[in-house]
């Protein structure tokens, strides 16, 4: 039974890893931003599966809800609203941008051998599973230990500020002064 678990774990792990890498390569080489968004949703779903495998069910669910669900929905929505998808077809990477690819290539050449040689070992039984009760207990700890509740509140404020900033940024271009005056007149006429 343990043997079977082991095989299933490895099959799932390598499947998810391969899917996420292929999706990332697809994102790099796609011609259409909308296809790129779909590739990225695939990567994020595969990563959510990896999180579930790696003892982090809460973040796996959060990954699907926030990343694959909310953020990518927003990206796809804006691509479709601006209807600029065909713009992506025109430009292929030229020499200058291919030179830019040397930087991440060099980064990978430096980091990957280092990481591959790390003496890391999974501590089964010693490490917490990333489940909601344990995370909540440590996130909102007030018994003198290191809690993150203040940071949590600040994140809430940051999100609120981001939403207000996004509305202001997107709105400013929508209504020219003339439209503004017309809207005011319209508003006055209703009263």
């Amino acid at each position, binding site marked *: 039974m343990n043997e079977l678990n082991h095989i299933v774990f490895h099959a799932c792990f390598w499947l998810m890893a391969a899917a996420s890498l292929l999706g990332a390569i697809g994102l790099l080489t796609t011609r259409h*931003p909308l296809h790129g968004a779909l590739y990225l949703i695939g990567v994020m779903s595969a990563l959510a599966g990896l999180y579930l495998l*790696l003892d982090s069910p809460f973040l796996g669910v959060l990954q699907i809800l926030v990343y694959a669900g909310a953020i990518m929905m927003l990206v796809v929505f804006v691509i479709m609203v601006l209807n600029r998808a065909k713009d992506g077809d025109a430009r292929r990477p030229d020499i200058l941008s291919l030179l830019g690819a040397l930087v*991440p290539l060099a980064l990978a050449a430096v980091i990957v051998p280092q990481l591959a040689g790390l003496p890391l070992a999974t501590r089964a039984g010693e490490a917490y599973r990333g489940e909601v009760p*344990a995370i909540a207990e440590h996130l909102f700890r007030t018994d003198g230990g290191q809690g993150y509740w203040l940071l949590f509140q600040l994140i809430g404020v940051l999100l609120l500020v981001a939403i207000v900033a996004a509305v202001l940024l997107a709105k400013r271009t929508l209504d020219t002064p003339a439209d503004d005056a017309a809207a005011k007149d319209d508003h006055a006429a209703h009263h």
Partner: protein
Amino acid sequence: MPPTTDAFDPAVAVQVLAALLFCLGAAVALVRRNVFLILMGIELMLNAVNLSFIGFARTLSGDASLWGHITPIFTIAIAAAEACVGLAMVICITRRSDTVDSDHFAGMRE
């Protein structure tokens, strides 16, 4: 406890995968000219860092292991705020210059 060879430990493989995904995300952000693809490259880099945190969480013991599960929560919230403001800026710039090619966004240079 050193890693045993008979039972393969995914801890190192996770870190290598995270590094590769990060580099692919950086490549997308640097090579592609479409602003949407640049933003998605940045999102991919943030995802890779989250995977790295979760991979490391399993190699620690006790309270330290939970920090690897708590930090990605903040990363995800930051990514949401970044996507929100970033896409609003894309809408703003696109309305002004009528393109999503980042080569045309050189107004600050002139």
